[in-house]
């Protein structure tokens, strides 16, 4: 046991550490890590729900976050590399191991729901299931180093090795051409991602599509599992309602405005259960009691409210 302690002290000794001060060592790492942690947490990408939602094709937060990230940083990195402020550190390209590794990594992310960086962030955020993930990552790295590195370093790890190259090197043209092309592609992708949401909202609003669709899907989920835990616990429900107000302040405001407008006569204000921005349109709107309110809301009048108006006209 004492030998262990001696070795532990040896590791934390200042001679064997990387230099403590200085930007390229521990202090710089800690500062960068603090900023990085705050950004990861605020972007909500340390959450299993968001990362898993990406692979379930239901939550595209990561795409919307990742595209501007790549667009802005590619411009920044190459601009300042041209000025000579920073150096490029190009990763090695080995085609086959990277395809196999990528497939395996994707499988692991789908199950674990965190990538190595966000697992650390998730532990900081209170999701304790990042801890076995981190321990597993350490175990996996040791496994590779002990059992496979010596056999594979000469054979498998060299298939398709093209060294530390970039696309501009391979194609032999100025990198800014490729950057412009990349930016155009990414911008199109971003617009497409945003449009997809708008398109679904549009369909819901004007044609009532997808509402039955999603309900039908919910019914297919085994009973008892599709109900969030919040439904049984009133405190939890309250907390979630509070969170929604924090996440979507504009939405809540808009919704309450609409309700107040249409309820001016009856003075009954029902605050409907708040839902995601896609589901605003579904939110139960109180029936319009007078024609005035209907006229006020012409901009928001939906096609399926037309019969109500005609009935009101016929009644007198």
């Amino acid at each position: 046991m004492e030998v262990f302690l001696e070795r532990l002290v040896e590791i934390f000794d200042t001679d064997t550490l990387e230099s403590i001060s200085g930007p390229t060592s521990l202090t710089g790492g800690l500062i960068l890590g603090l900023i990085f942690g705050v950004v990861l947490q605020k972007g909500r990408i340390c959450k299993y729900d968001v990362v898993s939602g990406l692979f379930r094709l239901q939550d595209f937060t990561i795409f919307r976050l990742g595209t501007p990230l790549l667009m802005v940083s590619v411009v920044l990195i190459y601009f300042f590399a041209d000025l000579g402020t920073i150096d490029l550190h190009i990763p090695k390209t080995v085609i086959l191991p990277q395809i196999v590794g990528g497939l395996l990594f994707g499988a692991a992310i789908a199950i674990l729901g965190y990538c190595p960086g966000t697992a650390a962030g998730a532990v900081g955020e209170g999701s304790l299931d990042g801890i076995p993930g981190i321990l597993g990552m350490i175990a996996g790295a040791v496994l590779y180093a002990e059992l496979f590195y010596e056999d594979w370093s000469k054979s498998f790890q060299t298939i398709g090795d093209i060294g530390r190259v970039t696309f501009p090197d391979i194609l032999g043209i100025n990198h800014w051409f490729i950057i412009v092309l990349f930016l155009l592609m990414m911008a199109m992708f971003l617009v497409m991602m945003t449009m997809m949401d708008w398109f679904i909202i549009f369909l819901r609003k004007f044609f009532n599509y997808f509402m039955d669709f999603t309900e039908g899907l919910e019914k297919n989920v085994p009973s008892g599992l599709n109900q969030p835990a919040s439904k049984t616990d009133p405190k939890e429900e309250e907390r979630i309602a509070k969170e929604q107000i924090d996440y979507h302040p504009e939405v809540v405001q808009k919704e309450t405005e609409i309700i107040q407008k249409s309820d001016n006569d009856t003075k009954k204000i029902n605050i409907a259960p708040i839902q995601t921005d896609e589901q605003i349109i579904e939110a139960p709107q109180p029936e319009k009691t007078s024609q005035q309110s209907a006229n006020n809301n012409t901009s928001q009048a939906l096609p399926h409210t037309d019969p109500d108006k005609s009935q009101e006209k016929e009644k007198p």
Partner: protein
Amino acid sequence: MSGKSKKGLFFIIIFFIAAIGFITSLYLKSWWPILTALSLLFIITPRWWTILILGTGFAFYLHSGWPLIASVALFFIGKPKRWWPIPTGIAFALVEFYSFYLSDRPLGITRGYTVTGAIIEYLIAPDYVDEMAYWQIYEPIIDWTIALITGVVIGSFVSSRFSGDFRLNTVPDTWKMSMGPSTAKRWAWAFIAGIMMGFAARIAGGCVSGLLISGVIQLAPSGFIFMIALWIGGVVTTLLFYRSNVITIKRE
């Protein structure tokens, strides 16, 4: 207990902690007791004034204005529980650039875990580690990436605590909906997936931040190959692993 007496008790506790920290640091003539007390204060009551006090304390301790500036910045922009994805992406890009500028290397996380594995092996058998070829690349030394991981944990904790997003849980909600609420099952799967992830990262030579992002932003083919392979592997595994429970509409 009524609200008033609760509040009174609360302030007494705060005052008690601060007083203990102050007295101990006066007695020992060093800074760390009061800093620990201030950090504890922040953890108990994450409010705007505690974060400003904490920033000021660290600014005096380190003889530098940056902690104060950081705390003021967090005070202004840290209150909402989420930032919209596009501004967050731009902030992320600035962090990535700052890493190149300040530390002269791309942000990479997995190296830290590998080095941790090397350190654990070194604690058990130091002679064996010296012979291993792989541990010559990843030396068992506490390095930049381990500091980075520590920073991520602390930063995420401070941010979530300040905005009130911090919630201790062992099983995520979506997992509960599709795989059941068992903690043991979730942790076992997390461990298996972690082994796969560490192994895959060593084969490919990096993780999402170290290979994918830093590869794509330098227009290296490796990043693009890894991105597409990761996406395909993730979607296929999701369909196979969760089967009919893939679609769980989370009412948020």
